[in-house]
């Protein structure tokens, strides 16, 4: 190390790494700024396309996107699912949290009264291939359908005995528990604000058909 310091010190040795770090950081910021809008649009399109599978009878084109303030003071994105006959079919909540490897983003389907989960969709994840990434499979997601939305979901490793229990994936306990934690947190945070919205359509609410 003494020899390293003699040849110009730490800055003299690491200047290239520092310059590259700044340069690459700038390039990535530019790429992110340029492409993030398009990536977000792709995610939005996917969200709208799966809403009919999360809330039975919902019409993708009549879905209304809303922002509500959760109990934690942060804004959250929710969707009012409307049927072709203009009746209210349910809600879809967009929620995210830390998984085993990276952030997991979910879409949670709820009935109009906010008492039952009607579906679950994994919008984004980078869990371990062949283990944790099985949270995206219908076989796991369907385990949440019909579960009570007014109780905390509990992951179990055996056959569920209670109404609010869901069987975890074998070999992917942390990913499974991450999903249930995201669902529980989102519902605890947003049930009341959504309930307040249930009886009133706020000014400015518009379906995708009209907002484009």
């Amino acid at each position: 190390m003494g020899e390293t310091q003699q040849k110009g010190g730490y800055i003299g040795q690491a200047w290239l790494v520092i310059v590259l770090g700044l340069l690459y950081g700038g390039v990535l910021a530019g790429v992110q700024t340029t492409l993030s809008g398009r990536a977000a649009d792709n995610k939005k399109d996917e969200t709208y396309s799966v809403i009919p599978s999360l809330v039975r009878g919902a019409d993708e084109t009549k879905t209304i996107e809303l922002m509500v303030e959760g109990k934690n003071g942060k804004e959250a994105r929710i969707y009012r699912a409307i049927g072709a006959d203009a009746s209210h079919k349910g809600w879809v909540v967009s929620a995210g949290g830390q998984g085993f490897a990276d952030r997991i983003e979910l879409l949670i389907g709820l009935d109009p009264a906010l008492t039952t989960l009607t579906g679950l969709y994994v919008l984004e994840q980078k869990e371990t291939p062949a283990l944790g990434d099985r949270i995206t499979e219908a076989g796991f997601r369907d385990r949440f359908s019909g579960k009570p939305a007014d109780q905390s979901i509990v992951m179990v490793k055996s056959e569920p005995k209670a109404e609010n229990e869901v069987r975890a994936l074998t070999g992917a306990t942390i990913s499974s528990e991450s999903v249930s934690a995201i669902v529980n947190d989102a519902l605890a945070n947003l049930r009341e604000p959504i309930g307040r919205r249930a009886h009133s359509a706020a000014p400015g609410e518009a379906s995708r058909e009209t907002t484009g």
Partner: protein
Amino acid sequence: MAREEPTALERFINGVLPENPIYRQLLGMCPVLAVTSAMKPAMTMAGATAFVLICANIVISLMRSLLKPHLRILVFTLTIATFVTIADKFLAAYVYEMSKQLGPYVPLIIVNCLIISRCEICASKQSVGVAAADAVGMSLGFALALASIATVREILGSGMWFGLRVLPGSWPGWGIMVLPPGAFLSLGLLLGAAEWVSRKRARTNLWRTVRMLWSWRR
């Protein structure tokens, strides 16, 4: 006497077959096993890897005189990670379905030994032209190898190639071929075949040399 470095043409040719990254060097096994169930994901992975390898090789070659020996791996990793992130963001923006299908395997290009080994062996020692030719050759070799495995798996597994039906509808589809065991079986058999061809060629060359020496002695 210092060994002479290969020329750009030699680097290019070596990358395609004689030093094929998969069949001869056994590098990048993770994507080989994970994304070769069909041609579309395999070719997307090959394209993303080619972009990262070519860009990384060129950038490293341009700054080769500035590299400090004890910091070179850090510089390689920093450069590779930057281009992998660009490829990942690009796929998420323009090929969204494929980006979702490939999942974590695109970010995992960062740890593909093929790329860092080319930075170390070629780009950090030779000119930009040679480094670029090396990267193109290796990328082509990598793509050919992925394509060969994906072709076997997709055709036998589903009777299709690039999503188009090539076997009659009566083909039962060997489901195991698109599952992980199919990747190991295909890779093992194709590696064995490549080794057999290579040894046969070496034996033929040996006999030719022996005969030549014998005729020269007489």
